């Protein structure tokens, strides 16, 4: 899918609310990589770098080109209110399903089924939930254009914050075909992310493509180890 650089910058400025905003080092490359469908991407950046702009702008561009919705899985949804606000500023319909908004769940699920939501944010626990999987995810699953795994260091024994429900995610990533857009992000603090960890995760993402072909993986790492 062709990448529209001017539109991406415009979205950044609308989303950030700053007319003179410009992309940080690596941000635009990451968005382009996703939109063009060039393979799996792992983004390791400090908190505040603007990872959310990467997936929100990428989602918006994909939706404007007629793609299906994005699905974001994060264990820290309650902390994402500010990001969701930014998404809405760029007219991106972002909704989160978490324990603090139970009253809205039914409406959000309906909206997702009607293709009225551009990016749905859920927790790994919700993702593993049978009812949610069968009734909400299954009908839309064939159209999901982008899968974002936030806090990717929680996957399995890579990291320091293992969460059991990431096991399912791990399996799912293993079985995804290489053309499904996959973005894994992590904001693990600098000193905790050593290069060996990065290598492990990268190797894992690569391996899960099945043997044979090696598909490109880009590491948007700029700025992390300065």
């Amino acid at each position: 899918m062709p990448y529209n650089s001017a539109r991406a910058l415009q979205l950044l400025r609308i989303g950030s609310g700053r007319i003179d905003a410009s992309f940080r080092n690596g941000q635009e490359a990451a968005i382009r990589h996703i939109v063009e469908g060039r393979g799996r991407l792992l983004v390791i950046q400090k908190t505040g770098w603007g990872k959310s702009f990467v997936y929100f702008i990428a989602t918006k561009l994909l939706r404007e080109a007629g793609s299906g919705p994005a699905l974001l899985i994060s264990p820290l949804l309650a902390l994402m209110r500010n990001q969701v606000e930014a998404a809405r500023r760029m007219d991106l319909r972002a909704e989160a399903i978490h324990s603090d908004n139970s009253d809205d769940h039914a409406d959000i699920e309906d909206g997702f089924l009607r293709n009225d939501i551009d990016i749905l944010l859920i927790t790994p626990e919700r993702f593993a939930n049978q009812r949610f999987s069968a009734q909400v995810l299954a009908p839309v699953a064939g159209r999901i254009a982008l899968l974002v795994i936030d806090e990717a260091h929680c996957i399995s024994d890579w990291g320091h914050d293992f969460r059991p429900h990431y096991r399912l995610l791990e399996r799912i990533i293993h079985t995804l075909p290489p053309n499904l857009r996959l973005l894994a992000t992590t904001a693990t603090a600098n000193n905790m992310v050593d290069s060996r960890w990065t290598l492990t995760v990268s190797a894992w993402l690569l391996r899960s493509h099945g043997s044979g072909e090696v598909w490109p993986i880009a590491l948007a790492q700029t700025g992390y180890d300065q």
Partner: protein
Amino acid sequence: MTPLLSPNTQAILLLTAPLIVGRGKTTPDLLSPGEYKRLARHLRETQRQPADLLSPDATTDLLPAPQSGIDADRLQRLLGRGFLLSQAIEHWQARAIWVVSRADADYPTRVKMRLREDAPAILYGCGDISLLETGGLAIVGSRHVDDAVIGDTMAIGRLAARAGRTVVSGGARGIDQAAMRGALEAGGNVSGVLADSLEKTAMNREHRGLLIDGQLVLISPYDPSAGFNVGNAMQRNKLIYALADAALVMSSDLNKGGTWAGAKEQLDKLRLVPIYVHLTRGTSEGLNVLHDKGAMAWPNPQDTESFGDVFDRAVSPTPTMTPSRPPLEGDDGSIPDTPSATVLTGQREPQAKQEPSRPISALTGNQTVTKQIDDVPKAAKELGDIHSGGHQLTAMKYNPADALFGSVREVMRQLLRAQEPMKESEVAAALEVSLAQTKVWLQRLVAEGVVENPKRPAGYILKQSRLFE
């Protein structure tokens, strides 16, 4: 099973499989078997494979001509179902259901060789897939039959078990289930080919232990959640014959029903295996007509030795048993069917007008699985080095060096099928030959494109995912 699907298998599933999970609706515009066949043929002709469609650089030149009805948008929509695919695989894995595609080495050899490009692109299954390589006796018949015929069928199933022959059947009520039950109760092996509801059948408590113990394998070319469909049942029959070494029709209506249609298709057209009809219970119009069409009378063997004899009968006296059909994807279509072609069977006459085809006879009446015919690259055919399980296929020019290398190639294909590349020294040790000789062979196989040697991890491994071989 289903550890990791190869990119080829992923692509074929995305294009052709309904991927039924949860409350999801099935995609209306899946490629039909015919459409997939055209696409696969086109890819083959342009030296591509299905996995190339998943590449970020996939372009429209991968597609056949627009008039094929397979346009880029439709293909993109189907290939865009990657997340759904992962959900479906998760669903299958939780139920111990595996998937193989024609691109996989595990795909049942008999089906691939006999049905060629009409072989289902995808097979789902549960249980030990290697049972499908054991051939055996296909037992088919109607759903509604009297108890006497059920009793006969169970007895034949038991005898097959005692003779160490697998029973292949369809899993439907009536004859199918009687044959399977007879064999299973006597400790025999059964390949069940289902037209629907694989998931439900595999989860059945009665089958679970048998599946786990490797006595029973259940397969279907249809989504594990798919329900009954008459058309599917007809297609499924072809698979039953293709998996067996001989077939027995226990009962059949005349001019109607799946048993009739399946047996008639075999006798009139496909002739994959020798076919018997069970005439011992008095007359049946359906069976009599099948008999007239060339099916042999079941000799009603009572002991394991005479049971074994039914596999040794010639297929039929009719002139050709090689179905006339185009080559499978991967063959380049240039293999001529003339005396100058190197692979000829003894009983085969050069025919005036026949499309390129391969000798299929080597499989009948023989338990050895003869993968070679299909697997050996065309280069090998030109060298005339093929011999396969029991049947010597005579070549026009016999060259001992080439014959040796042909065997080496096949052995290496088995050896290097592993997950991880093997080092030269490991290959040499496994073959018990010198390192120098090993290197020469490996280099030649790399040059042929049969084997590749990746840098990391270093070593040699069978070239991946060769749909076209």
